[in-house]
């Protein structure tokens, strides 16, 4: 009997998810023993035509990481959906939109204007911007590029998704669990996020040092304070999103003295991660005075980037349609790095 076939693909992503697959270390040998990897652009020389040549549903499972930004990624998502029995959104970007999804604060025009014209490091007096089609003069051949969409979307906003492997990147143990479950056909109901359905605080090594009632008088950023390596980070005034975030990672960030940024996304009862996370933090603020509360909230330098760092495209608001010209529709806050720092 031939081995089940699996594929890996990347869309708008950084390559960290591919690293996570490599991080399986010797376990990858067990995977290769059990399955045939027939498509993995980052590591193996297979082409799109090889996928097109497969029968529909011939891939037992396909792991797609990265958000969906271009027309090419849409086509690949649809192609892989057709060829796969199980399509698994792998990593924060395909699960919730991820860091590339923060670009949804702008649209295509605003991004192109900044990246190719306005950024301080750019010299482009002729205003050259990428074209989707360029006709070459000499032989009449037309070069094409994929179309760059206005919005970043999650994988399940593009095609139907069977399971989600959360995380930036997904923790190795969760990958192993998922692969084992697929091979043994012990999968939970369709649509499940393949991670424990509890908040990170439950498995946090600092759990015992969390006071019964957290009351924050100050919100600090990691570089502004000397962090006690044993005490609950929230109790130290650091913006840790553990209470709103799904567990399953083993809390490596918290263990390394960095607050949780929420890459595993929400638990199953929460529909909008950012709203729930900001609700959790706002509730802990210890003040009943309107002006003091406003001043404390100002200490959160970049609220959208903090609470929606991995999930802006999956938010309930998704994004506003700009009915103004794109330059005036930029967010009120200037996001130049100088001002943030």
């Amino acid at each position: 009997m031939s081995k089940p076939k699996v594929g890996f693909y990347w869309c708008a992503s950084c390559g960290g998810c591919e690293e996570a697959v490599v991080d399986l270390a010797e376990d990858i040998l067990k995977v290769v023993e059990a399955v045939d990897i027939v498509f993995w652009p980052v590591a193996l020389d297979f082409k799109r035509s090889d996928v097109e040549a497969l029968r529909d549903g011939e891939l037992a499972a396909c792991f797609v990481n990265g958000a969906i930004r271009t027309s090419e990624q849409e086509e690949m998502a649809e192609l892989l959906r057709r060829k796969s029995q199980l399509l698994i959104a792998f990593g924060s970007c395909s699960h919730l939109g991820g860091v590339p999804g923060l670009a949804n604060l702008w649209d295509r025009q605003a991004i192109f204007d900044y990246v190719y014209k306005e950024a301080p490091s750019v010299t482009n007096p002729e205003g050259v911007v990428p074209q989707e089609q360029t006709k070459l003069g000499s032989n009449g051949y037309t070069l094409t590029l994929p179309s760059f969409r206005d919005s970043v979307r999650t994988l399940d906003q593009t095609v139907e998704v069977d399971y989600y492997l959360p995380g930036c990147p997904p923790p190795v143990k969760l990958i192993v669990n998922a692969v084992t479950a697929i091979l043994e056909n012990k999968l939970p109901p369709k649509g499940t996020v393949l991670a424990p359905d509890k908040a990170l605080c439950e498995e946090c090594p600092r759990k015992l040092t969390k006071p019964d009632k957290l009351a924050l008088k100050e919100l600090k950023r990691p570089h502004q304070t000397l962090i006690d390596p044993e005490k609950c980070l929230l109790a130290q005034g650091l913006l840790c999103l553990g209470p709103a975030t799904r567990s399953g990672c083993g809390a490596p960030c918290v263990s390394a003295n960095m607050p949780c940024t929420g890459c595993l996304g929400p638990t199953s009862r929460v529909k909008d991660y950012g709203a729930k996370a900001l609700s959790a933090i706002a509730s802990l603020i210890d003040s009943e005075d309107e002006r003091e509360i406003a001043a404390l909230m100002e200490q959160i330098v970049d609220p959208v980037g903090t609470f929606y760092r991995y999930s802006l495209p999956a938010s309930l608001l998704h994004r506003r349609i700009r009915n103004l010209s794109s330059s005036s529709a930029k967010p009120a806050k200037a996001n130049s790095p100088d001002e943030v720092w």
Partner: protein
Amino acid sequence: MSKEWEPRIVAFFCTWCTYTAADLAGISRMTYAPNARIIRVMCSGRIDPQFVLKAFHDGADGVLIGGCHPGDCHYQAGNYKALRRYTLLKRVLTEMGIEPERLRLEWISASEGDRVQKVMNEMAETIRKLGPLPLERPLPQPLPETERGAVPLTSPWPSPYTEREGVRLGLRGR
């Protein structure tokens, strides 16, 4: 047939103060803009920011939150919680390109029927000036809620980390 656009406002009123005030406005036969759909909640502290976003998501052009005056909360501190969430949520909305005026928080006690009238009229007027709130709907729609992440509370998917291991991974020098 085109119908003229009317602002759609969702108003979350706490049952002890603002909802009672709205009742009083009704009993007193005060007239005010009919643009708001009132949703009664036990306390303004019950209003999860997700409720507000869901209202916008489902087509509201504005959201009004009404609670008891500071110090008057039936549950002692619910309205302060609402105030804190509202302050932070408003910053997030502004950064996402949504006018801050679309979300409003008001303290209205049970005796202030006239204030309900005034706030409702003002809110309708503000939203009318701002116009409708168009949100992009990603297509195709994601899986229905029942299918997406529909896991029972006791997840069959246990944590891969034992408690001991969590501690071992955790604190250095232990």
